[in-house]
């Protein structure tokens, strides 16, 4: 009844009316403003800091340094290696050093501008290849952050059996999340003396734990609430404003607000990892892939952030959604004094998709096989063995996504000179790689007979609020007006994990279903399904204590073998195929994306309209990745020079759903958040090859680069 329906987003009305309180909108009586003093150097010792200038600004109340931190001055999702405030040394441009707190924003920023910092500069390590070989240590542990291996079969044997071998190196660069709302939040001390943070975030329980460590307080003394959040894409997984706000509120006992300017966000936020991918593919003359060898190296910046996860996920997904008997992948991330790279929509997989899809088109061309046919021939399906040796036992609708687009592909026709079509495919493991990533959810029958969903899953624009409510409504069989949503408060919810890795529909969805089944059993016994009202049941039972039901789901996965990367890294995978039509203008190198056909195996489409929204957004972001987005450290400062697509760059998008239901998911659902993006850039690149006859090995393929490739082709014939 509620599954597969285009229920209106529960947050639509207040966002349309402008009444939603985003983090930037938060205000409190007597609130102060904080801003951060950041490093101007990529690598330096802090030789001297003079704060008198800041204190000379009337209204500046306090300049906070690492010395004011009562607890641990480090945080990190995977390794606790990043300082909240630098102590002796800074390792990237934009690293926080001090917090300046003033009566208002102007005063705080003026104060921050008047702090004087003397740097003792150290040689900066900016080249990841040099970082690995060099002796200049950025962090004591050495300059290799992560090294992951994947070994399946015997690649040398696989190449020996092949009739064609294609080898190329693919390069990608830093990408900013470019969420609409920059990092912002408010911190205060409540009546009970607890520290409360409301912020723009993708996770609340993780941040509560980090703040507890920072302040050396028990977690119960910290409360984190998610404000309405204007986008995340992985950029609000790491601690951003939360630590500074907690520290400021703790020290001054007054509400403190902060918001990053766009320039500050560009400077300080994590980026998509620039990867260099050496990719070799072997295939038999009939099109069967015999071997894939991939060597991935990347720049991760000075701190770990989500580097380990990106490193591993890139290796695990190296072959793309194809069954290859012999696979060898090495994935290494090096520490540098560049920007901190971290989580960004896809954790390394969009970069790999660019490589494996380009490779496949070249293999197909060499063998004279249609690009669609070679994908169908090698595509993962039920019973296939993935690169990590996992047998896909259910929900593997990849070939069906290809078949959905087959009529359009076969009927494609170049409308004019410069028209071209390309395919891009992907698979993506839902949830974190090879580690436990559980979610909990609470469902309560509360006052007035209302069913309340308490969830810690952060709604970041992706639609989780609506999807989780649909799961609840379907499970209980109640009306929309019977349920209330209580989301994103560590005081009222249990840990649902982060809104990342395309996991909330699948993991939190299942936890909500489990909790709702508990309530359903109670309602059934109490006669709800025979006509008794929720109010009646509530009034009759409330004296026995809160009617609260706990749901829990941890996707069944195993860790991966360190030496071979073999194992079951994910419980389930999403699959997708995008077909893109472009028009390339030979005179200028301009590439316009005209039409995208997107087919996704989502297990079960809980809210098809929401999925379409996610896919249109992913298409836009993928066009940016393919054609224009490029963060250049030291140069890119704002949207003035960092181009993301506008509505004028958007093609027509047709969405097709494949529903190969996932038995462990809620009503068969998987996820679509990152899959929406991952194949898009790859399909644009393949369409450019079809349109202009040039191969693109470096992104973004902006007008200059594309024109250059076409000029070179003209010169060499």
């Amino acid at each position, binding site marked *: 009844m509620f599954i597969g329906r285009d229920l209106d987003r529960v947050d639509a009305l207040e966002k349309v009316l402008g009444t939603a309180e985003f983090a930037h909108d938060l205000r409190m009586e007597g609130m102060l403003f904080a801003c951060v003093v950041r490093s101007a150097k990529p690598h330096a010792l802090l030789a001297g800091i003079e704060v008198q200038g800041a204190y000379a600004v009337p209204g500046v109340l306090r300049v906070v340094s690492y010395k004011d931190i009562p607890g641990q001055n480090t945080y990190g999702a995977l390794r606790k290696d990043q300082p909240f405030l630098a102590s002796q040394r800074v390792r990237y441009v934009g690293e926080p050093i001090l917090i300046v707190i003033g009566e208002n*924003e*102007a005063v705080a*920023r003026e104060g921050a501008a008047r702090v004087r910092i003397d740097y003792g500069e150290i040689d900066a390590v900016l080249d990841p290849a040099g970082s690995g070989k060099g002796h200049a240590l950025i962090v004591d542990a050495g300059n290799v952050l992560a090294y992951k291996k994947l070994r399946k079969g015997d690649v040398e044997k696989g190449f020996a059996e092949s009739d064609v071998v294609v080898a190329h190196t693919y390069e990608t660069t830093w990408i900013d999340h470019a969420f609409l709302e920059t990092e912002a939040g408010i911190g205060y001390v409540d009546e009970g003396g607890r520290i409360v943070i409301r912020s723009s975030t993708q996770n609340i329980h993780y941040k509560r734990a980090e703040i507890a460590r920072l302040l050396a307080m028990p977690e119960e003394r910290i409360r984190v609430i998610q404000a309405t959040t204007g986008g995340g894409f992985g950029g609000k997984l790491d601690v951003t404003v939360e630590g500074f706000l907690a520290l400021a509120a703790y020290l001054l006992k007054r509400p403190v607000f902060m918001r990053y300017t766009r320039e500050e966000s560009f400077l300080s936020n994590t980026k998509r990892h620039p990867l260099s991918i050496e990719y070799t593919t072997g295939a038999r003359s009939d099109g069967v892939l015999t071997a894939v060898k991939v060597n991935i190296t990347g720049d991760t910046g000075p701190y770990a952030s989500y580097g380990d996860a990106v490193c591993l996920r890139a290796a695990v997904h190296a072959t793309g959604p194809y069954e290859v008997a012999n696979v060898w992948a090495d994935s290494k991330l090096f520490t540098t004094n560049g920007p901190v790279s971290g989580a960004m929509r896809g954790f390394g997989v969009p970069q790999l998709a660019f490589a494996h899809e380009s490779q496949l088109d070249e293999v197909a061309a060499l063998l004279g096989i249609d690009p669609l046919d070679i994908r169908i021939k090698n595509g993962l399906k039920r019973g296939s063995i993935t690169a990590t040796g996992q047998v896909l036992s259910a929900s593997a609708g990849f070939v069906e996504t290809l078949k959905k687009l087959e009529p359009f592909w076969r009927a494609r026709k170049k409308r004019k000179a410069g028209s071209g079509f390309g395919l891009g495919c992907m698979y993506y493991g839902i949830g974190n790689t090879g580690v436990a990533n559980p979610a909990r959810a609470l469902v309560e029958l509360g006052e007035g007979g209302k069913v309340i969903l308490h969830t810690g899953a952060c709604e970041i624009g992706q639609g989780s609020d609506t999807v989780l409510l649909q799961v609840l409504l379907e499970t209980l069989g109640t009306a929309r007006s019977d349920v209330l949503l209580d989301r994103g408060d560590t005081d009222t919810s249990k840990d649902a994990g982060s809104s990342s890795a395309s996991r909330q529909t699948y993991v939190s969805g299942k936890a909500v279903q489990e909790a709702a089944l508990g309530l359903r059993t109670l309602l059934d016994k109490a006669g709800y399904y025979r006509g008794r009202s929720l109010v009646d049941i509530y009034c009759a039972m409330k004296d026995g204590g809160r009617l609260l039901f706990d749901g829990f789901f941890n996707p069944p996965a195993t860790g991966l073998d360190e030496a071979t990367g073999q194992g079951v890294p994910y419980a389930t995978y999403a699959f997708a195929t995008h077909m893109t039509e472009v028009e390339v203008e*030979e*005179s*200028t*190198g*301009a590439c*316009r994306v005209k039409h995208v056909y997107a087919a996704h195996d989502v297990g079960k489409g809980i809210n098809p309209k929401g999925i379409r929204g996610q896919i249109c957004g992913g298409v836009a972001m993928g066009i940016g990745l393919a*054609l*224009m987005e490029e963060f250049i450290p030291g140069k890119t400062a704002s949207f003035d020079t960092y*181009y993301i*697509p*506008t*509505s*004028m*760059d958007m093609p027509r998008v047709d969405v097709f759903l494949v529903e190969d239901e996932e038995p462990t998911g809620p009503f068969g659902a998987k996820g679509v958040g990152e899959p929406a993006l991952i194949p898009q850039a790859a399909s644009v690149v393949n369409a450019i090859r079809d349109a202009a006859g040039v191969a693109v090995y470096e992104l973004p393929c*902006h*007008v*200059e680069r594309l*024109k*250059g490739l076409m*000029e070179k082709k003209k010169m060499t014939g």
Partner: protein
Amino acid sequence: MLPQFSYVAARNKQEALSSLASLTGAALLAGGTDLLVRMQKGETHRYVIDLGGVAELAGVTEEDGTLRIGGGTTHGRIAIHPTVRRTCASLASACSLVGSPQIRNMGTLGGNLVNASPAADSIAPLLVHDAVVTLESMDGERAETLSRFIAGPYRTTIGNREILTSVKVETLDGYHEGYRRIARRAGWAISRLSLAWALRDADGIFTDVRIAVGSCTPVPFRPRSAEAFLIGKGRKKPVVEEAVKMVLDEIRRIAGMRPSFAYKLPVVRDLLLSVLGGGACS
């Protein structure tokens, strides 16, 4: 955040001119799409005189083959103005491509010219139309050709007490006219390169050729020698190729060799070959 300043809202041209004459350290706000960005980055002015309320500065009139466009006319207005679209199509097209809708609704022609960015969209079409700017101050009025007025990148001959009140444009009837800009995305982008042109021919013989190249040399320019070379000649491939070569030589003569020319020169070449060869270029 903006630095502090005193705000003066001029209600008419006289008030604007007298404010500008009497106030020291005043900047003119003619839309603000450049001024406010610079002030946001720290540029300071004691006074900001807003011309937005001065009706006399906005609007388009036509008489005797001349179009007079008020300095305060927004890009958005120019882009949709029927007379401009008919008699000065390249300018209408250029104005329709400036920035975003919001920028086009705020930014003005006068502001665009006085800012004199090498990438300003309006300059190349106005050069094609031999535009003349009118500058007024309390001391009187003077006129100057646009090509003289733009003295260098972000530099003009405007005086401290002067306002660019209007632009006079020669209307061109019977010309094939157009504007093309290249940027990294379809809209809301700075031009990497722009080209305006107005061509007239009789029986395949060029009777007039006007070309302006923007975002390439320090200031947008007209390759006069190539234009003169083409007049009287037939629209033939070798002729056009020779003219294009002259344009490229002229660019290199003006600007030397820049890294960006690896991209820009082949694009100028291909666009001009298409335009002069009679092909579509959009």
